[in-house]
């Protein structure tokens, strides 16, 4: 599809998504779609390093935690608006991702995945065990609350859910655009190359270590932004939720089912599975804890068994076929006239 075609579809999709709050006005439903977009955002952010660069980071929630805690602590103790705190958190997360990546990217796939798990688990425990950083209270295991300021858009707090929806929609669009741009840029080509054959990529001039670090930094940056958003939405940060294995797993599972390493795959996976998860939770009630995760787990296993490349490619192939059929019948109708 040409760039123009893609742009048209893109605008259409975003416009459709933007119209959702006009129809779904109940807070419960709005919250649900916000979470759907949120997880799609996280999956897309993970995908930049986990899909494009092919590095299986299984402890990515650490970066979300860095984002959330940074912006919240800065807000509580210096009054800095989370809009800026978000960027600070993103920057810190990017730097840490590079520091973590430098020694770990040398390791083979499984070792790397393991290192990310060890790092993230350790980080979560640090968050749980630390009550103060200097003079700042960080909450420890009890968690950190974001002070309620009412309707203050400049401080990223809103009355009602709709504004949050637009914020996360904007973030999702941004991360998808960035992914799309990377995919067709030199970095994207180098990342794909090193995924397929790292030695060959190096022989062709790619400093693969640097490429991976760039991907890691960008991915961590966006994941951290997500962490801040979460903090502002839920107004409560606790280590097991924001820095835990569940969140890490979710990001990965959603991206894989949708299509690791593609631009839209993680969005698809995020939207599809989270919707399913939320529907199941709604139907079967809150007494069934963790049912959505069971679904994701099974979803990933099924995906790996039958469609390891994810659902996006078959889906796009189906859409293209549909488009051809439509075009052909339209052409036939015209000649028939």
């Amino acid at each position, binding site marked *: 599809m040409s760039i123009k075609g893609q742009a048209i579809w893109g605008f259409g999709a975003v416009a459709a998504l933007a119209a959702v709050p006009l129809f779904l006005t109940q807070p419960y439903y709005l919250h649900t779609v916000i979470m759907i977009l949120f997880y799609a955002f996280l999956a897309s952010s993970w995908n930049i390093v986990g899909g494009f660069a092919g590095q299986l980071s299984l402890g990515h929630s650490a970066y979300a935690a860095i984002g959330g805690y940074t912006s919240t602590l800065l807000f509580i103790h210096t009054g800095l608006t989370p809009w800026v705190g978000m960027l600070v958190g993103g920057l810190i997360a990017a730097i840490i991702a590079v520091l973590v990546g430098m020694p770990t990217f040398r390791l083979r796939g499984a070792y790397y995945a393991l290192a990310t798990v060890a790092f993230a688990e350790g980080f979560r425990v640090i968050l749980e065990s630390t009550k103060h950083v200097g003079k700042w209270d960080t909450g420890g295991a009890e968690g950190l609350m974001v002070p309620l300021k009412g309707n203050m858009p400049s401080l990223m707090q809103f009355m009602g859910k709709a504004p949050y929806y637009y914020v996360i929609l904007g973030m999702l669009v941004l991360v998808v655009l960035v992914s799309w741009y990377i995919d*067709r*840029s*030199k970095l994207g*080509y*180098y990342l*794909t*190359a090193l995924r*397929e*054959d790292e*030695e*060959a*990529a*190096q*022989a*062709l*001039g*790619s*400093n*693969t270590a640097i490429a991976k670090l760039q991907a890691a930094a960008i991915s961590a940056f966006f994941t951290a932004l997500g962490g801040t958003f979460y903090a502002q939405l839920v107004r409560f940060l606790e280590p097991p939720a924001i820095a835990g294995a569940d969140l890490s797993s979710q990001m990965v599972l959603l991206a894989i089912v949708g299509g690791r390493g593609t631009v839209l795959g993680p969005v698809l996976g995020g939207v599809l599975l989270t919707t399913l998860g939320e529907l199941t939770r709604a139907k079967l009630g809150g007494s069934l804890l963790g049912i959505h995760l069971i679904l994701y787990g099974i979803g990933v296993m099924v995906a790996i068994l039958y469609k390891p490349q994810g659902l996006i490619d078959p889906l796009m192939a189906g859409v293209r076929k549909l488009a051809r059929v439509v075009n052909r019948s339209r052409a036939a109708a015209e000649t028939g006239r």
Partner: protein
Amino acid sequence: MVILEAKNLVKRFGGLIATNDVSLSVEQGSITGVIGPNGAGKTTLFALISGFHTLSSGEIWFEGKRIDGLKPYDLCKRGVARTFQVVKPFASKSVLYNVTVGAFARTNRTAEAERSALEVLKLTGLYEKRDALAKSLTIVDRKRLEVAKALATGPKLLLLDEVLAGLTPREVGEAVELVRTIREQGVTILMIEHVMQAVMALCENVHVIHHGVKIAEGTPMEVTRNETVIKAYLGEKYAAAAGSQ
């Protein structure tokens, strides 16, 4: 003018000496061959020159500057490109994509890299197949692709590692033409080869490696008459026969 100079290269893997005091030089614009029986250490030599293995000792000079110790991607930027004996295509991507990766060595812009890649594809006869997936190519085309990728990086020195292996005589002929065309573009070529037909047809100078040691150097004619060389390939009997010529 000498474009590549390798001085006293030694490479040890634990107790094994893969490369034992090998020195060679390559004239700019030439097609130079490296031949030798299997397991002689030719590919190790290439790996040393292209930065995939580190030297145990020795020096490598390229265009008057020392390059030993540099990483493969830095060497590529300087103009040293290589192909791999076991071809390494980016299997699930198209031929054009594969070559474009190489072209990015000279530019940062995708459009420019693609244009460059298309030119290289035309040169190597893969233009028609530019949208085919690399994994769907025949072995001949995969070899072409391997060369095309390296060529797209705009090298001054191209290391070809047994690109002719497994080709039919007609395909060998086509490949020989391609190598000549590449040289005409101003690229110096250093090639490891077993297919003697090509070595005789193409190489101006040949180095012979055996057990990690250089045992002879000269024109293809000189080298194939050399007693030590024949002994290395075929054993004592034939050496004696050649000696009596």
